[in-house]
């Protein structure tokens, strides 16, 4: 894969595709959870609460990956990491004890209902954040912090 990479920019090159898939999943999760909250929340509060949480996290991850930059990058690490843990935890729990949740969520059975995209996506996202980390492969040098820059050595010829 010839990912055109500008280190530090998470929404460029391959990142365009990643953000697109995240955005679609965010739309799906928000649509699903609003529908569940509006029509039948009382039937399975745990499952539908989880749906809502996952929807919020997907939206945050999408925005963070699209924006990039230092602060957003941290948000992206946290939200994408949270999804990776969430899909593994809920996927395992739904396999071991299906009754806990009462109803299915985006993460049930490791995201089977969404073509396993929720399982694959966070790990691709973590790889992409690592791949585009500042300082990787010819990144522009960090701007010098005022006061710490050593004065030019007069002895150097």
């Amino acid at each position, binding site marked *: 894969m010839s990912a055109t990479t500008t280190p530090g920019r998470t929404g460029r090159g*391959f990142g*365009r*595709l990643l953000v697109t898939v995240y955005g679609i999943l965010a739309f799906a999760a928000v*649509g699903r959870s609003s*529908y569940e909250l509006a029509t039948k929340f009382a039937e399975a509060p745990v499952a539908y609460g989880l749906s809502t949480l996952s929807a919020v996290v997907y939206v945050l991850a999408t925005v963070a990956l699209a924006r990039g930059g230092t602060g957003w990058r941290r948000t992206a690490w946290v939200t994408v990491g949270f999804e990776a843990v969430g899909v593994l935890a809920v996927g395992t729990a739904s396999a071991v004890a299906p009754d806990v949740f009462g109803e299915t969520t985006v993460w049930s059975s490791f995201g089977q209902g969404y073509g396993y995209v929720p399982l694959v996506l966070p790990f691709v996202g973590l790889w992409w954040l690592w791949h585009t980390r500042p300082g990787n492969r010819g990144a522009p040098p960090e701007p010098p912090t005022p006061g710490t820059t050593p004065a030019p050595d007069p002895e150097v010829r």
Partner: protein
Amino acid sequence: MVFPLLILVAALCAALAGWALWFVVRDRAVILRQLFGAAAIEAVLVVQAVIAGVRQATSDVALDGALFWGYVATALVILPVAAAWAFAERTKWSSVVLAVAAVTVAFLDWRLWQIWEAAA
């Protein structure tokens, strides 16, 4: 909803996705003419939504309205957002984005048809 429009949307989405994937192979970014293609699909989706609304209002279909119109809203939003997002990127990845969006819209339209048929 009417079946011929479902087929039309599927065909247009397949054509747009194929066109975009051809651009991926050629290492090219999305061009304006492809966005006109996306606009044509969007127009058919709007016509489809209007027909569904009229049919729902004038007949006794036991349609799950929140579910159905939630899907309609999602289907209508995806192409404009994806087109803008793709067009701002000037590498082949913009073409991948457009192809993914077209396939997603085709899938959503098929889900719409399922929900409609379940109620009819």
